[in-house]
């Protein structure tokens, strides 16, 4: 058993960390006001209070209903979420009352605070309602259906919306919503449950060939199905990142469940082949790849849908350098979508490389907690669920941030917890709630499991 050190009551440590994060958040908002409008405005409290109050509400619920839950996850979630709000607020505050075109500017910070409150309330409800994550196993096929339905929603006429080339959105009335974000939770639950029940046959059956066990054809069924579904997402919704995300979650979970690298190798080859063909056939993917490979090229830079945004993001990051310009001191507003897709370049500009390293490290820490929960659990479903959620956060962060930092071609996913957008916040806070719930039932030292 890994838990050798006992740090005292985990909830007390959590409480102290939440206080620290709340203080940092107040400092961020104050710093932004002083750096941009030069005075402290009391609207600060309206941005500060809701996330902080709800975090303490969640803390209280954890004390009552999940007192052994991990103590780092909630403070990290709150910190990343509020840092995102700070940056979004910072971008809002410098906008003129009326834009050059005579309209009111698009403001995001207030909405983000409201979404955060809703997302944290839902997370609190999840902790209250899901008494044990093991009960989720009963709903794996419901999860599958829900996941598929959510994925398909944006393709429906009327309500489906295309935003910057990708069809990932649903709009009803004034509300828009990215159902794919919730689909990733449903699909993770489904993959975990499905693989637990099928792992024996997937792992063992098959003939050996040159030392590699080749599964029987029918055992390849699921991987082919998921592969086709991912390609469908790529072709129909026109987004490489989303497609990669779902397929990679499945590959990772099937690997963890069966311990057979065969699936990963075959799956990766299938995906790369599919993506390559798609990039040849569909100009938008090809354009993204061109921008990725040579963004500073004059023609690529000037092309419609070219590398302008990516390059402006790079300029912003370079402007920040090692230590950044300080919150409110940079020019992140020069980058299109600075509050959502490119929030990492906004943060990199104002907090510098040092700040980005800290943010990366906090994500790694959050993911490490998920891994730890996964390792500590003894039952396969809990293990798969925890590593699945951890990997979802890791991969999504990697795909988005990698896109901005030119590790990968740019895609239309949102930066978990940081970026403006309600759907993503709700989905990620549900993941946090579920991770907290799973961590509460980790077998304790001295408690004999199985």
């Amino acid at each position, binding site marked *: 058993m890994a838990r050798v050190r006992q740090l005292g009551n985990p909830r007390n440590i959590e409480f102290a960390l939440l206080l620290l994060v709340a203080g940092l958040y107040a400092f961020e908002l104050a710093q932004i006001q002083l750096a941009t409008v030069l005075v402290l405005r009391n609207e600060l409290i309206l941005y500060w209070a809701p996330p902080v109050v709800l975090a303490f509400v969640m803390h209280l619920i954890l004390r009552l209903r999940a007192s052994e839950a991990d103590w780092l996850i909630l403070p990290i979630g709150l910190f990343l979420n509020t840092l995102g709000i700070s940056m979004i607020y910072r971008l809002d505050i410098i906008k003129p009352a009326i834009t050059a075109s005579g309209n009111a500017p698009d403001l995001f910070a207030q909405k983000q605070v409201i979404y955060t409150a809703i997302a944290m309330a839902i997370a609190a409800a999840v902790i209250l309602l899901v008494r044990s994550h093991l009960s989720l196993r009963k709903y794996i096929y419901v999860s599958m259906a829900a996941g598929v339905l959510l994925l398909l929603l944006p393709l429906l006429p009327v309500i489906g919306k295309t935003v910057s080339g990708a069809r990932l959105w649903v709009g009803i009335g004034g509300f828009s919503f990215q159902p794919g974000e919730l689909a990733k939770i449903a699909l993770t639950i489904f993959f975990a449950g499905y693989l637990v029940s099928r792992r024996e046959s997937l792992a063992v059956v098959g003939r050996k060939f040159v030392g590699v066990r080749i599964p029987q054809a029918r055992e390849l069924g699921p991987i082919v199905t998921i592969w086709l579904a991912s390609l469908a997402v790529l072709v129909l919704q026109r987004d490489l990142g989303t497609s990669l995300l779902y397929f990679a979650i499945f590959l990772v979970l099937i690997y963890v469940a069966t311990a057979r690298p065969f699936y990963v190798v075959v799956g990766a080859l299938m995906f790369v082949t599919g993506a390559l063909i798609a990039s040849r056939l569909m100009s938008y993917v090809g354009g993204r790849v061109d921008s990725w490979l040579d963004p500073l090229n004059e023609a690529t830079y000037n092309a419609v849908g070219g590398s302008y945004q990516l390059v402006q993001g790079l300029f912003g990051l*370079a402007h920040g350098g090692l230590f950044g310009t300080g919150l409110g001191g940079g020019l992140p507003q020069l980058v299109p979508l600075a509050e959502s897709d490119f929030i990492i370049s906004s943060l990199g500009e104002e907090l510098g490389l040092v700040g980005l390293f800290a943010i990366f490290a906090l994500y790694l820490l959050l993911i490490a907690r998920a891994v730890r929960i996964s390792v500590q659990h003894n039952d396969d479903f809990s293990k798969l669920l925890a590593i699945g959620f951890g990997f979802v956060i890791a991969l999504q962060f990697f795909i988005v941030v990698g896109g901005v930092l030119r590790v990968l071609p740019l895609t239309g996913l949102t930066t978990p917890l940081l970026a403006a957008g309600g759907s993503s916040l709700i989905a990620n806070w549900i993941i946090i709630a579920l991770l907290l719930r799973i961590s509460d039932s980790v077998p304790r030292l001295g408690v004999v499991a199985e």
Partner: protein
Amino acid sequence: MNREIKRVTILITLMFVSLFVAASTIQVISADSLTNDRRNFRPVYDSYKVLRGSILVDNQPIASSVSSNDEFRYTRVYASPMYSALTGFYSYFQGRAGLEGTLDSYLRGSNSSQFFEQLNAIFSGNPVTGASAELTINPKVQQAAWDALGDMKGAVVAIEPRTGRILALVSKPGFDANLMAVHSGSQSQANYSTLLTDRNRPLINRAIAGDLYAPGSVFKLVVASAALESGKYSPTTLIDNPATYTLPGTKTVIHNSGEGKCGGAKKVTLQQALKLSCNIPFAQVGIALGQDVIRAQAEKFGFGDTVKIPMTVTPSVYPTNMDASQTGLSAFGQFDVRVSPLQIAMISATIANGGLAMQPTLIDSITTANLQVLSAPTPTQYGRAISATTAERVKSMMVDAVASGVSSNGAIKGISVAGKTGTAQNGPKQPYTLWFTGFAPADDPKVAVAVVIEDGGGMGQKGFGNLLAAPVARKVMQAVLNQ
């Protein structure tokens, strides 16, 4: 299963390592090249945060920053289009040009000589205040040059021969640099496009960095200098003076200006040839000297060199690999000889200064906001172009040219003026390029000047250097002498 989880963790770690590496590469390793990218406006925005220093003429700002009540904090204000060839412009959106570009690091306080101010700014939290540059320009001379050119396209450069200080530098038409300093990107872009597509090309600095011009007869000063320096010629050396001359190896026949024999005699002295600006004798002298001798002399005057005043002056060109006929044409400033007005002013200034060329400069001093002098260039020798004797002899020819020769309109009553006109051909039916260069007073030179007028001053092939360029030069010299 834990072994597999461990491997997934390694994969996640690798993903994050790639992000760490990518962020470090962008923010540290390639940060400088990204910052210097032409498409990156952040440095311009940043520099708007500092109170940019002024560009001053006689302690009056010709470019200065005043507070504005918007996010840009300051607006750049320019006093007059008369100074546009000096200041250039400083724009949020279109970059920088002219001294605003050349002196940028001083004006925005980021020059390495302002290190302690920068350090102070870091600790005090106050932004750096940029240094101001006082120019050598004399506002009265600048005004006289601007007015004298009137509506003609062209340029004037006036230099103090002993020091190389530039007293006037005008390019016409000028432009209103305020148009680019506006705080609306679309407006600034529109204004810039209008100027850029204006057929009179006001954004071109004709004095130093426009298209170079054919010098015509003012180049005879270089050939006369080369001839005297060679020792093979003296002012009284007689040269054949036919009415027409067929260039060796060709059927091209050249004429003197005004056709016929230059001065009427069968032979003419070098002194007279320059005074009357005879093409045929000079072609023969040029061919006899050879292109290498002429080129060596031209380079001593500054040809082929990138002179910085501190703006970069486009180097003037004396062609290479010419045959004898081309050398003949080059000797009276035709064929592919191309010069900047500043180069021509430098030649006159050098002759005026006894053959010693001085480094031309616009900078009197650069001073920080707390009056620390960062730079105050002392007169610097550019190099000896010709001997004092040769200088004296060429000067005497130029004095004759104004007093009783073809450059008569440069004359100022009661003062001995040295001068040389030029009327360069630019091809059949093309209007001439008109020149005057000279200095005054001849015995104690206070000012050397070069005037160029494009497009025949609007008179096509009827405009001559002596008719249009010489009076401009006279007014500029008078403005100096009347101080």
